[in-house]
């Protein structure tokens, strides 16, 4: 897609500009009660080997049976990615030996995946719109986990994950910066979460990415790529790409060539290192799994799922922009997480001004949530409380400054904002007599400044500050301004 190099993304070097080309393979654990081909449970955090069926342990004579729930989730995800749904797909065996792979092969989809081409749209912070092509989505089994720290001499194997359904979502090499790659993963995760097809929890390994990176001169043919395996956080994806692109540029500029290889990202050093070269790559000997029939379903099955799809982030964003004239990027950030969008919508429903509510949620509320580093839904200030604060600001009951203090108060100690305003006497003072009295006091006490302000009207702000301080921030700032100008005989600026 994005064939024309955008200057902002280029890496400048003494030998000229370089462009990075990034494609991702995201492994997303399907949200389902049981595994892809067995009835065993999938919950995270169970005791080792507590969720293993005879099939998952590859006991002799055991056979896989497809779990319909996983198929439904894959199709719904495909629809969410605006992708082609293949009514017939085939499961293949990918053969290799590893202790956490009990069958000696992984059941995956090779030549005929369940979902074909689709697209994910990204709105970048600088206003750039990026479209990332989806090549395919296929279903496959997860492997178990080797535990190397339980015994000095042997390794142990936990098969709880063995056979859990994964969706491998393969993008086109359409990304040109680490920011775009991060935005892509965030957007993908957002879509998956809206759909409820993957919880997107990267710490628990529900979402992980293999990152393909290559570099080229702008407009040149694609360079040789390296694949960085299993990167499991948004931050690491960014770091891995930045490191890898620069590593490749350095090699090429030194007259070397890039070896196509698989690499690992080390979060401690922020570097990538070689895992295996192309020559060492496995021959997986893919062939159709004879234990499973081709996976077939009807168009009406797909249509029914499409009809029941929830509103997805892009649709929500379009609606927010159309109905409430929100800015592109604001809307994008609001809808990125469903809880956030719902929170905002609740405020609007309760009567908050949409634009003010959007600003408030994105700046004040989200700012605090991020500062505290907690989950959005755990924030102690409810949409009702924030709506009340905004309404009181809007009708002049409290000042903007007090609004922020009030928000922090509710965050820390809870309580009803309206009652707090009453109890603590936070109401904005809009009684001109009261304000005049204070102004008179300030003028009387500061003759030097009065002289100064006559010569330099811009120092009026100092008086405003004094008055506000004496009223505990409660005075209506506009009124203070007007009255001060009148008393000090300074013209409206």
């Amino acid at each position, binding site marked *: 897609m994005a064939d024309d190099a955008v200057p902002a993304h280029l890496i400048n070097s003494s030998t000229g500009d370089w462009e990075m080309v990034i494609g991702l393979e995201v492994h997303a654990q399907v949200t389902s009660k049981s595994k892809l081909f067995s009835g065993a449970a999938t919950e995270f955090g169970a005791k080792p080997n507590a969720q293993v069926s005879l099939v998952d342990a590859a006991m002799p004579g055991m056979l896989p049976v497809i779990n319909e729930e996983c198929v439904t989730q894959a199709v719904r995800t495909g629809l969410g990615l605006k992708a082609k749904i293949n009514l017939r797909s085939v499961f293949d065996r990918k053969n290799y030996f590893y202790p956490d792979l009990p069958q000696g*092969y992984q059941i995956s989809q090779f030549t005929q995946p369940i979902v074909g081409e689709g697209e994910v749209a990204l709105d970048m912070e600088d206003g750039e719109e990026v479209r990332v092509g989806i090549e395919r989505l296929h279903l496959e089994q997860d492997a178990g986990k080797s535990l190397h720290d339980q015994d000095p001499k042997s390794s142990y194997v936990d098969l709880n994950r063995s056979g859990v359904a994964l969706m491998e979502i393969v993008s086109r090499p359409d990304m040109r910066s680490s920011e775009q790659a991060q935005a892509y993963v965030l957007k993908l995760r957002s879509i998956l979460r809206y759909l409820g097809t993957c919880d997107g929890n990267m710490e628990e390994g529900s979402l992980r990415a293999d990152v393909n990176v290559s570099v080229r001169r702008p407009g040149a043919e694609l360079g040789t790529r390296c694949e960085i395996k299993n990167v499991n956080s948004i931050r690491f994806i960014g770091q891995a790409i930045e490191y890898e692109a620069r590593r490749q540029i350095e090699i090429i500029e030194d007259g070397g060539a890039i070896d196509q290889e698989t690499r690992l990202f080390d979060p401690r050093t922020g570097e990538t290192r070689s895992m295996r070269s192309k020559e060492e790559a496995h021959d997986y*000997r893919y062939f159709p799994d*004879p234990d*499973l029939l081709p996976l077939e379903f009807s168009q009406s099955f797909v249509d029914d799922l499409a009809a029941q799809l929830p509103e997805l982030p892009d649709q929500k964003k379009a609606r927010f922009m159309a109905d409430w004239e929100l800015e592109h990027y604001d809307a994008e950030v609001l809808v990125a997480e469903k809880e956030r969008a719902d929170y905002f919508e609740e405020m609007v429903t309760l009567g908050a001004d949409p634009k003010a509510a959007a600003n408030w949620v994105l700046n004040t509320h989200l700012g605090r949530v991020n500062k505290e580093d907690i989950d959005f839904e755990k924030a102690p200030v409810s949409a009702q409380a924030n709506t009340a604060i905004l309404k009181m600001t809007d009708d002049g009951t409290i000042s903007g400054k007090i609004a922020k203090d009030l928000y922090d108060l509710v965050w820390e100690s809870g309580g009803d904002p309206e009652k707090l305003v009453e109890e603590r006497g936070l109401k904005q003072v809009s009684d001109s007599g009261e304000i005049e009295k204070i102004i008179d006091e300030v003028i009387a006490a500061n003759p030097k400044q009065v002289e100064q302000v006559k010569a330099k009207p811009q120092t009026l702000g100092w008086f405003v500050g004094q008055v506000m301080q004496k009223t505990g921030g409660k005075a209506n700032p506009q009124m203070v301004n007007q009255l001060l100008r009148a008393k000090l005989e300074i013209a409206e600026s």
Partner: protein
Amino acid sequence: MSEPTRLTIAETRDALAEKKFSAEELAQAHISEIERANEALNAFILPTPEHALDMARASDARIAKGGAGALEGIPLGIKDLFCTKGVRTTACSHILDGFEPGYDSTVTQNLWDAGAVMLGKLNCDEFAMGSSNESSYYGPVINPWRRAGSDAPLVPGGSSGGSASAVAAHLCQGATATDTGGSIRQPASLTGTVGLKPTYGRCSRWGIVAFASSLDQAGPLTRSVRDSAIMLGAMAGHDPKDSTSVDTPVPDYEAAVGQSIRGLKVGIPREYRMEGMPEEIEALWKSGIDWLKSAGAEMVDVSLPHTKYALPAYYIVAPAEASSNLARYDGVRYGLRVDGDDIIDMYEKTRAAGFGAEVKRRVLIGTYVLSAGYYDAYYIKAQRVRTLIKRDFEDVFEKVDVLLAPSTPGPAFAIGEKSGDPIEMYLNDIFTVPANMSGLPGISIPGGLSGEGTPLGLQLIAKAFDEEMLFRVGHVIEEAAGELPTPDNWWSKS
């Protein structure tokens, strides 16, 4: 009490109902026979007499209450490929040493639900790979039949050699078996027994140690066509645990036995008349044709043009699937483990020690044909051949109801006679492999004796899920061939 080990399943069913003997007495008679014979025949690798007596007593209780199942009290042998709960199951491989499944295969569970009694686990070729039962870790099985005037031990065929030998020698009344390329029909032919390979998908594969998943099918080995029908009725059925099992009702197979074949069209496939085929096989085939004609059937010459490609294609598809199916035997979770310096070393040592030569050969062939660069030339091409073979049969079954052919290119051979030459061994399945490649049901029925005085079988192949046709026509052959002379009992210790 008449000798219960001499009876067929159908006769025993009546005798039990008439209380001529109890299921326990019946089981005990067979247990004693196994004790006397097994040293010579090596058919059972694990007799389970206590298990058998427990099950038989439970059968007697059910008979007393009037709740007898279709196979109530019938003593069966179980090929060691079938997982049996709490009873060692090894597929006759060293690599599954000591493996005791916590589950029964669907087929064996169906048999127990019908009241059958397990006498023990039967010998077979390792992982069902072989045509002579010489590849078993537990040693070869001996055919109760001998060449006239000779004491030389003969093979019972394979891979279900233990099943065939045990049924032929009256150590059990029927046995489970599996057929991937002829492993039921070929040993049936070599031991004078009735061996049925049902349609692919008719019996569940769940709990049967897999050899080649797209070809494996369980079936019965018995001493009569009627017994075959009775046993299949209990074994068959849809199983949600096997995605390739087919959800189609199980008919009353026994009702097909004895039905007239007047007016049926029997296809005689010309490609089965191989160059250099022994005259006695030709003669046997001719007898079959005559018998069916006399019974009112019409013979039709038909062509299955791709028959000659079936065996080579089979020896690509089956090893390919096997190489992957056998990957799970890695020493990590069950069976044999030979310790090594690291995980790779452990894998290599375990698999080197655990698999026999024939299994290793097929794993290597299978790995090779699936490898990058060879996959299209071998595996994909073999699958195309398979499609053509299927189409051959579809075309032919537009015109005829059933096909008649020999089961094997020759009679039982001596131990060691062919084990040095894999290709010659593989050729034993030349007539049986096409039914596996096309998923169609086939049956081998004793048709007569070879010049050496050993049995020869005739094979019938029918449309998918038309096992009734096999029983109907098979019974006519059985009647016409008459009772074969039984081999002199040289194997029982007194």
